[in-house]
């Protein structure tokens, strides 16, 4: 068959083209399908990767949640510790209860962040009173107080140290307390003292959005213990303070009484001195006349006088001399006491004074055959004193020693230099009277005389006091000598005292500060 028909040829050509195109199309579709399959596989892989990524993300979230929770708890615990430290410092630095609760209110509100705070404390009548109240209106507080009066079970539990909170309390108790306190999260804890329940601490929030943790419970519990301790301290302090106040009042009253008595004594003493001074002055003038006239009569210028009269006149003269001496001594004591006699202070040499005194007493010493021993420290410097008055002291004391020392007895005079700290004063004397003087002259006049009985020693330096012994009964005296001696030594800021044993002897000690 000859294929020359152009139409047929075209048809065949078209068929070939169709077949070719179809084959090409099939190839493209096949490649597309392959590509789609590849892309689908890729998409699946990508989705798997995303899912994988999501799984990892969920793990990350879980871990992050746990970390966040731990971190939050740690933060709260640290905040709690900060708060506790601050509150503790605030309440421990005051013993005034009112101030303590004022500080607590501030700390509870500002630092712990609780919206509602209430502290109820038992007063002296054992009634619960609010000392801190924030966020609890009057009617709510009245309900709470009335409830605590009724519910003995709750109070018993609190007394036993049991706390209640929105975390740990049984559901019924929790709901009841939430309603009573008008809070959501809350902590109710006892404030305990050694002698039992002192009060109740309650904190809470109205909104549930700020829940509590066990750390909060722990914080509030520690805080309540510290409040209990602070209350204990405060009450103890109050008791001590009141006792002290009472004591102070008593001391003040007694001091007032003593001051009044002292003033009275001083007035009497002053009046006595003034009286003595006045009387002595009044006595001295007529006495001088008596003595003058007696002396005139004795000279015989007014006519010869019989021997018997002369003897009587001598006695008048002798007793007048004694009376004059006594009046002079009295006047001196009165002057020194009243401060009218000013000491004529000048630089004195102790050696020199003792030499003068020895000269005066030599005759008496020899008459009684007394051994006189004198030990004077060469290092004693010159010191400020009224030489005449100090000589008077020595003459008086040495004279007494001679008077009371039997024949062939011994008198020892020791004079040494002492530091104030080295002195051993009798317990009745205080160092403070020695003022700020550091160096002292210590004089001791020791005799082997009849000694002085213990009962006489405290009165020895009193005016007109005379020891009742056999010598004094024979030898007359005024009882003013030692009193005058003490006045002179005290006027020199010194001290005098005596130690003695009956029948063994006496020792008169005195100190003179070196001025």
């Amino acid at each position, binding site marked *: 068959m000859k294929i020359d028909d152009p139409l047929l040829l075209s048809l065949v050509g078209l068929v070939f083209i169709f077949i070719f195109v179809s084959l090409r199309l099939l190839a493209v579709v096949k490649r597309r399908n392959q590509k789609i399959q590849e892309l689908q596989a890729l998409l699946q892989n990508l989705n798997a990767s995303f899912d994988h990524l999501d799984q990892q993300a*969920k793990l990350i*979230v879980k871990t*992050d*949640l746990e970390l966040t929770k731990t971190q939050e708890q740690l933060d709260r615990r640290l905040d709690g510790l900060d708060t506790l430290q601050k509150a503790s410092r605030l309440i421990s630095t005051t013993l005034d209860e009112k101030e303590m609760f004022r500080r607590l209110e501030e700390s509870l*509100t*500002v630092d712990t962040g609780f919206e509602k705070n209430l502290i109820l404390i038992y007063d002296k009548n054992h009634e619960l009173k609010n000392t801190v109240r924030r966020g609890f209106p009057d009617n709510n507080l009245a309900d709470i107080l009335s409830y605590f009066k009724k519910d003995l079970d709750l109070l018993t539990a609190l007394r036993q140290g049991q706390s209640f909170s929105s975390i740990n309390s049984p559901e019924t108790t929790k709901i009841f307390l939430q309603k009573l306190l008008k809070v959501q999260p809350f902590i109710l804890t006892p404030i305990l003292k050694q002698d039992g329940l002192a009060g109740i601490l309650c904190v809470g929030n109205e909104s549930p959005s700020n829940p509590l943790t066990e750390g909060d419970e722990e914080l509030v519990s520690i805080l309540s213990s510290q409040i209990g301790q602070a209350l204990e301290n405060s009450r103890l302090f109050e008791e001590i303070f009141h006792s002290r106040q009472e004591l102070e009042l008593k001391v003040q009253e007694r001091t007032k009484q003593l001051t009044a008595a002292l003033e009275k004594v001083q007035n009497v003493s002053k009046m006595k001195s003034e009286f003595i001074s006045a009387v002595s002055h009044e006595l001295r003038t007529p006495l001088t006349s008596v003595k003058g006239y007696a002396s005139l009569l004795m000279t015989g210028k007014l006519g010869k006088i019989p021997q018997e009269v002369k003897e009587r006149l001598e006695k008048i003269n002798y007793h007048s001399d004694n009376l004059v001496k006594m009046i002079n001594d009295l006047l001196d004591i009165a002057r020194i006491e009243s401060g009218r006699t000013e000491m004529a202070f000048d630089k004195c040499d102790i050696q020199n004074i003792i030499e003068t005194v020895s000269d005066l007493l030599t005759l008496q010493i020899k008459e009684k055959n007394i051994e006189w021993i004198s030990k004077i420290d060469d290092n004693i410097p010159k010191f400020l004193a009224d030489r005449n008055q100090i000589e008077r002291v020595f003459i008086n004391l040495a004279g007494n020693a001679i008077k009371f020392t039997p024949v062939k007895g011994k008198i020892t005079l020791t004079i040494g230099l002492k530091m104030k700290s080295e002195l051993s004063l009798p317990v009745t004397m205080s160092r403070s009277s020695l003022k700020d003087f550091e160096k002292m002259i210590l004089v001791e006049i020791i005799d082997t005389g009849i000694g002085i009985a213990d009962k006489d020693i405290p009165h020895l330096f009193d005016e007109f006091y005379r020891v009742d012994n056999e010598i004094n009964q024979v030898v007359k005296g005024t009882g003013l000598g030692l009193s005058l001696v003490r006045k002179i030594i005290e006027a020199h800021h010194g001290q005098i005292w005596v130690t003695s044993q009956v029948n063994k002897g006496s020792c008169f000690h005195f100190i003179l500060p070196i001025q």
Partner: protein
Amino acid sequence: MGTHIGIGFSQDLDAEIAAKKAALQAKTQLSRNKAHFTLLLTTIHYDPQAILPTIREILDESQIIGCSTGGLILSEKIQMRGILLLSISSDEISVGTAYMSDLVEHHETETGINFAKMSLNNFGNQRRDAFLFFVDNQLRTNTFFLRGLQQTLGNMFPLVGGTSCDDFRFTNNFQIYEKNILKNSAVGVLLGGKMGVAVSSRHGWRPLGKPRFIDKASGNIIHAIDGQPAANLYREYFDKSMDEIYTGKLSPLTILYPLGIPIEDKKEYLLRNVIDILPDGSIICQGDVSEGAEVHIMIGNKESCRQAAMEAAQEVHHTLLGKKAKLIIIIESLARLKLLGRMAYQEIAEIKKILGPDVPLIGMYSHGEFCPVQSRNQFKKTYYQNGSIVITAIR
């Protein structure tokens, strides 16, 4: 005369005494008889009715705006309770205050426009630099409100603000304008004159897991994500039962793990805190979301937050061109405070290191922030954001 700044703070337990102390401290620091403008930030522990008359009496003639806050940022500390006052006396800085009440009842865009117009009317013909404002956190569809502001003040005009805050309760926040204590309102101040403003914000949260897509959304409610009820996303990640999600126990967690929606070139993410979950599994966000948008669960940590704050401070420092700021105002998310915990002040310390330790600084914690978001082309358009720190420096 120049510009004088006075900052006063008190946390006295008695509201009136606290107000008096803070106002007197601000006035003393100001060392001028008259404060031209005062910003009052207070935690909800203080009754505004009790504090405002005292503050107004002491800072007589000063224009006052303010709001409640979940916490206060001070130069030396962060305080969760107190009254903070910033008073400005200046012949360089001009202010124009404004307020707008009953926000929810009105058309949001229109409200935004009127709000901006009022501030412009009170401002006068000066150079405008920034608008600082505070909005009730009940205003959940704030995109339209923001659009109204931008339509009037300009799309790229620095709008900086925050929502008034009540420590995650979302019930008790308030705003202050002069002698009025407002709710469901916005208060603001237009700043300008012979001054300059540098603003920057960052959050530090990063996307986690695979991207998902919002299938259905209206306003601030996301109904479905990837064909599932929106709440399933959180159920999967937190391994919580639906009951737990419905009862709202999830909310504090979702504040730490917000949703992130990429913007611009995916360099930044808008954060949205989840504040409630509806029985049908829809989730209510703080701020609007768009249907069809990509969405991620976001995660942050202390270090990423601290780093973000430092980046924001660096950017402000860079914008100031070496000039020293006269004042720094920080508006920061309360979620960050929750995440940072005891380390929260470290962030502020880092900012002070960068911007100068002696520059007066105040700030507040909010539920949501309005701030220009950084993008590659440097155009800074203001968005509503959660979880961020907004640093505003005035020079």
